[in-house]
């Protein structure tokens, strides 16, 4: 091997090596998991207790400097509303087999959020307290919106300096060990704040005590690997606007297969290509030599 070939091979190897830590680190799609999985905080929504007063909407807007809605106006229930850049939570009214049911909608604060795994600058973050929050180092690529199973992140399309707007589970309050604004405001105690473990136990208890009142399912216990927000209901969840086809696999898991293949390709491909190149070069030389003779 002459010096030049050695240097070239060495150079390619070096380039490969510099990328390897990068690739090996990408293996960690599970890094969005918070240690002590069940111990982060969450909210249980008992839809059988909600009366559609929208006090949570009002409190949420007040807590986050958003335009405060007029909650005495019932006409908003005429159509289904989605959360928006100015409304982090909305209450909708559904006609079901058991009459009118109200359900609050906001970020589910997944245990392993798709948006967090999607973010290439970690602007989206699952906090120890349970909140999924957004930060200003965001570049506005909107991949979190594509990756959210519930279509929750909302983007300010009409701003030169847009932000992602979504419920942050009142992270400012949680850090001070206080309850989220919506939970504080609920006059019906339809919202219950606690650790996720406590909330799952409480839900099971309520269903156990009144087995005919509730459907025997806790939405968010297994959905997309488990969420901080949990729901119990008297009617099947598809009747009150829930996606029931999201599966039990945490969304970041869908990309691990690809991410695992990255270091393999990064290490094996250059070696394979260099080897192939060496072979064809030798063949060329032998071919030339043959003609020469």
């Amino acid at each position, binding site marked *: 091997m002459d010096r030049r070939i050695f240097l070239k091979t060495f150079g390619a190897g070096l380039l*490969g090596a510099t990328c390897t830590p990068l690739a090996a*680190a990408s293996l960690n799609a599970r890094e969005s998991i918070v240690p002590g999985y069940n111990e982060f905080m969450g909210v249980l929504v008992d839809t059988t207790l909600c009366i559609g007063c929208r006090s949570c909407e009002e409190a949420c807007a007040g807590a986050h400097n958003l335009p405060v809605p007029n909650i005495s106006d019932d006409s908003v229930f005429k159509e289904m509303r989605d959360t928006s850049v100015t409304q982090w939570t909305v209450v909708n009214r559904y006609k079901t087999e058991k009459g009118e049911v109200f359900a609050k909608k906001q970020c589910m604060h997944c245990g392993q959020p798709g948006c967090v795994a999607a973010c*290439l600058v970690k602007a989206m973050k699952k906090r120890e307290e349970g909140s999924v929050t957004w930060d200003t180092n965001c570049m506005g690529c909107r991949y979190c919106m594509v990756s959210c199973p519930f279509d929750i992140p909302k983007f300010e399309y009409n701003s030169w300096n847009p932000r992602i707007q979504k419920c942050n589970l009142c992270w400012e309050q949680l850090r001070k060990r206080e309850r989220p604004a919506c939970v504080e405001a609920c006059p019906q105690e339809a919202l219950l704040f606690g650790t996720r473990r406590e909330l799952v136990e409480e839900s099971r208890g309520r269903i156990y005590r009144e087995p005919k009142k509730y459907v025997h399912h806790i939405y968010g216990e297994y959905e997309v690997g488990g969420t901080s927000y949990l729901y119990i209901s008297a009617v099947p969840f598809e009747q009150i606007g829930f996606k029931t086809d999201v599966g039990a696999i945490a969304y970041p898991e869908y990309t691990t297969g690809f991410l695992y293949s990255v270091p393999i390709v990064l290490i094996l491909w250059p070696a394979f290509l260099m080897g*192939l190149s060496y072979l064809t070069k030798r063949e060329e030389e032998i071919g030339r030599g043959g003609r020469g003779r």
Partner: protein
Amino acid sequence: MSAKAATPEIKSFKDFMVFIRGELRPKGNIFTPFNIISVPVILLGAILIAYRMVKGLGSITNLSQDFPWGMWIGFDVMTGVAFAGGAYVLTFVVYILRIEKYHPIIRATVLNGFLAYVFYAGALVIDLGRPWHIFNPVIGNKFGLSSVLFLVAWHFILYMIAEFIEISPAFAEWLGLKRIKKILASLTLGAVVFGITLSTLHQSGLGALFMMAKGKIHPLWYTEFIPVLFFVSSIFAGLSLVIFEGTISHKVFSQQLDDEHRRSHSDILIGLAKGCSGAMFAYFFLKILIFMHGRHWEYVFTGWGQWYLLELIGLVLVPCYLFLRGAMYKNLTIIRIAAILTMIGVIINRLNYSIIAFKWYIPLPAHYIPHWMEIETTLAIVFAEIWVFRWIVNRMPILRKPPAWET
């Protein structure tokens, strides 16, 4: 323009400036049909982009909360990068397999690939809501290591560098820098190996971006093999573009070509057609396997099923056969038709993932359709790329033979 003009004697900085100023002057007729159309489009595009920077993305796009990615991602980035795949395929053939037949087109292909990344991946900048943060994942204002997009972003940047190294000998020859050319040429093999590896990963990575859009993409298109499909389809997408672009360049820049190059042209196209046909058959076979395992028969007889079959049969299997036939009977017309069909197929495929079959359950009035201003800016970007390509081809030894310097 003679070949001598391209190898000037640059001894001082002043000479260099004189040379650059001379090269910046337009060559040939200014009022060509292409110029008359493209200049207003580019100017309008620039105005619209400036307007968008002030007023936000919503001002000139139809993007919404339901459709965060529109034409700029689905067409400019997804499709543009797939079409740029010809560069890594041909560098593999020429520098790794050392098949000399394709050497005459390698520089044009690599230049085209490089510019495609600069312009189409560059289109990402206008699509980003907060583009001034684009370097955050590079400078470490948080490394989102678990993100597929993090990988794609890094690979775009590294691949642009690799492709620039691959094309840089042409720049050195243009400037008459013999020693530097020698150094740059010695880096080519390393850049090629690195570039092919990066391409494998980010071509498939673009597909992997959609893995977390499970439930939003129609089941006929969503599969865990999206990354493999994106990679394999980038091979024939790239080669089809090389055939298409080669055909046009051959006419437009015919004064650049020597007789030897002209003679080998049809032979090259036939070889590329064979390659396309093989890659497309592999892709078709993969699609069939995935369909069988997906067990989505119930969708075949819906409108979506027919749209799927049109893509799979009409724009993959048919051109696959046409390529083969064209290569067998040495019929360039059939090969060119097949290339165009393939390109339409790739455009539709990438748009299906990002726009058309994305949130397929939202019916048309509420579904995303690009705003005319999004199409306008896309056209402006395509034209700007062609302008730069033309400028370089007219000045540097891209299509014509490089100067015969002793090595």
